[in-house]
């Protein structure tokens, strides 16, 4: 038993729903009690889908348990086939139905429904959503795909995109364009947009582009073995990774690398002098393994950041992420407990977080800017505009997304230079933070208590609490001159300056912090 307040991944049957909802002409009969239908709203609300997910829930109740839940399941299968006329059916159980052991697979197979029936075995008490997508897609492919003649032209399948995926919709467009530049047509994109009949012709393509290993690596391996199709290992997120991806495609197909990079702006944007301020910004990277690996590489090699820590929530990716962390000289954090992630971020004091929506909230609490790079998805991750993560346009989108939460270069300088300016002060906040601009009262020399109060007032209450706690956690006393000096430091780095100075003082065995101590600490931590 494990106490969970919030979870990065849903249960595995939600993964199966993501596959089914991404596809067309497939229906999912889920043996499940009332209430499990909540999962429909993930698709209709977060992704704003205009159709219900193709799922029939058997909706058994307590009074059915002693009786015949198996008949209920069979009726639901027959009704679904009659009503929706799918090309194929996937059947399975949610967590509760798993316990009553009705064997949906056996029941459905015995019914002679006239269409392929694909049973799913998703252990709800061991595995999670990511496993659910990967295993469901594998089973669909195993049941429907067969070795067939290759297409005359060189073609590729895109595999991995699902419903409720982080920017999957736009990544498909971007990868299709990249392949088109090389003269390669996309044969089938699956699960997203594919029908069961399309799965049957997966074997016609010359290779598979594995877009999201989380959702389709098992299927890619199966196709490699059974349809002799190689698959791409490099996920083309970022400039370097996109180049590597094209090289991989060229090696697989024997075609020369051809790509229109006229749309790519990241390399110049990041070299442009106004980006100098990005140098060495310490970032913490957390999300699903695939996006974390891509983001770490972009952060270090394309943005000039320093990766201060990284990790992922999906255990399936623990091994590659641990290896990656070693390359970056940091310890990988593999956990699905957001409180552990929050503690790690608080301990590392990064200047920026590249994370999920949960890390965005953690960042809000800790006063650290955050850009979202990974699922679990939120309604904000489905923008109306085109915003892929993959390919050249993806790199442009990533540059913009990561830079916007930061205080911009010139603004940072001005805040430093004019830190005691009558308008440009703590209470005013940065212009793009949207706070109210309050002129500072004329009497800048306030009592310590009042000063503490205004300091608190310059920040959202949650952040202020953190600062106060830090101050009281430490046994070190700030002399009033040093405290005053500290207050001259811009608010967005003040918390870190305070913590660093206290850490430095404690390390030196000091009980009092003077202006000297403050600047010694600054020099000590200077990079």
């Amino acid at each position, binding site marked *: 038993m494990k106490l969970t307040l*919030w979870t990065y991944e849903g249960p595995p049957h939600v993964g199966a729903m993501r596959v089914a909802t991404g596809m067309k002409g497939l229906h999912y009969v889920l043996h499940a009690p009332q209430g499990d239908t909540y*999962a*429909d709203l993930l698709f209709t609300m977060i992704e704003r889908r205009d159709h219900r997910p193709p799922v029939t*829930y058997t909706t058994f109740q307590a009074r059915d348990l002693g009786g015949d839940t198996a008949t209920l399941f069979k009726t639901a299968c027959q009704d679904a086939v009659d009503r929706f006329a799918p090309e194929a059916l996937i059947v399975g159980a949610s*967590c*509760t139905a798993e316990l009553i052991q009705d064997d949906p697979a056996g029941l459905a197979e015995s019914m002679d429904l006239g269409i392929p029936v694909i049973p799913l075995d998703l252990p709800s008490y061991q595995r999670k959503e990511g496993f659910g997508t990967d295993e469901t897609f594998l089973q669909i492919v195993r049941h429907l795909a067969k070795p067939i003649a290759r297409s005359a032209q060189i073609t590729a399948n895109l595999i991995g995109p699902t419903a409720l995926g982080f920017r999957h919709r736009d990544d498909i467009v971007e990868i299709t364009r990249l392949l088109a530049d090389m003269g390669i047509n996309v044969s089938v994109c699956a699960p997203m947009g594919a029908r069961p009949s399309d799965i049957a012709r997966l074997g016609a393509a010359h290779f598979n582009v594995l877009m999201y290993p989380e959702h389709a690596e098992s299927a890619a391996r199966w196709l490699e073995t059974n349809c002799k199709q190689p698959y791409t290992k490099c996920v083309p997120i970022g400039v370097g990774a996109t180049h590597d991806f094209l090289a991989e495609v060229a090696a697989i197909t024997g075609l020369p690398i051809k790509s229109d990079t006229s749309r790519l702006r990241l390399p110049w944007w990041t070299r442009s002098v106004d980006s100098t301020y990005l140098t060495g910004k310490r970032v913490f990277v957390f999300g699903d393994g695939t996006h974390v690996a891509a983001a770490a590489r972009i952060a270090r090699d394309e943005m000039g950041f320093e990766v201060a820590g990284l990790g992922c929530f999906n255990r399936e990716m623990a091994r590659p992420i641990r290896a990656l962390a070693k390359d970056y000289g940091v310890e990988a954090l593999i956990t699905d407990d957001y409180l552990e992630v929050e503690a790690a971020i608080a301990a590392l004091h990064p200047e920026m977080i590249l994370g999920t929506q949960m890390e965005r909230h953690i960042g809000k609490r800790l006063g650290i800017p955050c850009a979202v790079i990974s699922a679990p998805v939120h309604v904000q991750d489905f923008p109306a505009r085109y915003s892929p993560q993959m390919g050249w346009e993806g790199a442009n989108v990533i540059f913009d997304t990561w830079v916007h939460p930061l205080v911009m270069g010139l603004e940072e300088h001005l805040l430093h230079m004019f830190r005691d300016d009558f308008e440009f002060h703590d209470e005013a906040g940065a212009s793009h933070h949207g706070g109210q601009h309050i002129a500072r009262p004329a009497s800048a020399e306030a009592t310590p208590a009042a000063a503490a109060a205004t300091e608190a007032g310059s920040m959202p209450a949650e952040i202020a609490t953190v600062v106060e706690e830090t101050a009281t956690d430490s046994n070190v006393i700030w002399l009033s001159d040093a405290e005053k000096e500290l207050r001259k430091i811009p608010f967005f780095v003040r918390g870190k300056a305070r913590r660093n100075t206290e850490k430095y003082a404690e390390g030196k065995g000091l009980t009092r912090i003077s202006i000297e101590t403050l600047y010694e600490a600054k020099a000590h931590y200077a990079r």
Partner: protein
Amino acid sequence: MTGTLPALGCTNTPVLKERGQREVFCGLTGIIWLHRKMQDAFFLVVGSRTCAHLLQSAAGVMIFAEPRFGTAILEEKDLAGLVDAQAELDREVARLLSRRPDIRQLFLVGSCPSEVIKLDLHRAAERMSAAHAPHVRVLNYSGSGIETTFTQGEDACLAAMVPALAHSEAREVLIVGALPDVVEDQALALLAAMGITNVRCLPARRSADAPQVGENTVFALVQPFLGDTHAALLRRGARHIAAPFPFGAEGTTLWLQAIAHEFGVPQAVFDAVIAAPRARAEKAIAAARQTLDGKSIFFFPDSQLEIPLARFLTRECGMTALEVGTPFLHRDLLAPELALLAAGPVISEGQDVDKQLARARAARADLTVCGLGLANPLEAEGMATKWAIELVFTPVHFYEQAGDLAALFARPLRRRALLAPLAPRMEAAE
């Protein structure tokens, strides 16, 4: 319709009972508002990852640093009997309570998996109550989907609290049902102005303020879904003051009138107290009525509020109800409502969602009230919808909220009218 006596309304309307796929939440969802109401309570669901995912999806809990609800997720070894699930639960609860000293009430909430494996949470609650007394009281109820639909979770929670309430001989009135504090304060102020001050609320905001109950207690329900709580209070000797529910100016007046009558409040005093707020409510409703008048409405089952809301919308906003679906029809509690609701609509209980969708498409009401899983798909078919969950998550009771309640229904129609110029192009694009 002409053959029906108006006074009977829908009292004798045959109910269309349906069984099939239900597009509704389970009772766990009630935790989302109950934990905000009971400020020193923690709700611990004993269930699966699905339960945890439901709660965070329905509540968007990322807004809270450490929410006062969580899920003890059952794992393979709990099910296989490799570990004693009761001992595991004791350990998790002890850890939780040591980290959260502010918690005074803990609810162990049963789920579908815990019910199916017959994990005895009642025994667990008794054992933990003894272990953590007097600081923390531990109670249990089931919010499982195999037993409860959406708001029935609140009913199960309150019903579980009733046997634990202290006995009292005092003549008091108990207001039953979780209301937002601001709304509860309005109700208490209205009653106080009539001279009724011996009023308690269930649930109380803090466990120290828990009401007492006995033979001299009378109680009034503010929600129509509290059937089990109603029965539990009757077992404690309390007496129910039957009335329509306090939605809209009329419902609020009749609800207050029933309590005033019980306590012998002179009619002149009653009239004087309600005159101003009632006039305000009627004025606010009139604004929304401009949009709603003459429009038809179709309710999918969701919260059991459907019949009282249909009564309000038809009698005070000029709407016509085509179908009023409810997950469960508690005939006794809803008798005053059914009498007021004019005959005409189909009254349906339970759900077979695909059949009901076919009826909704055929009826093509001006406004369809449904859950979030159905709203966008129906909008895409060109039907105006109102998310039912908002009716539960928004303050809608009593006079001062009557206008807001009407406005919730008017807004989708007003929005549609505002966006009408875009509509032809959108349809052309499809």
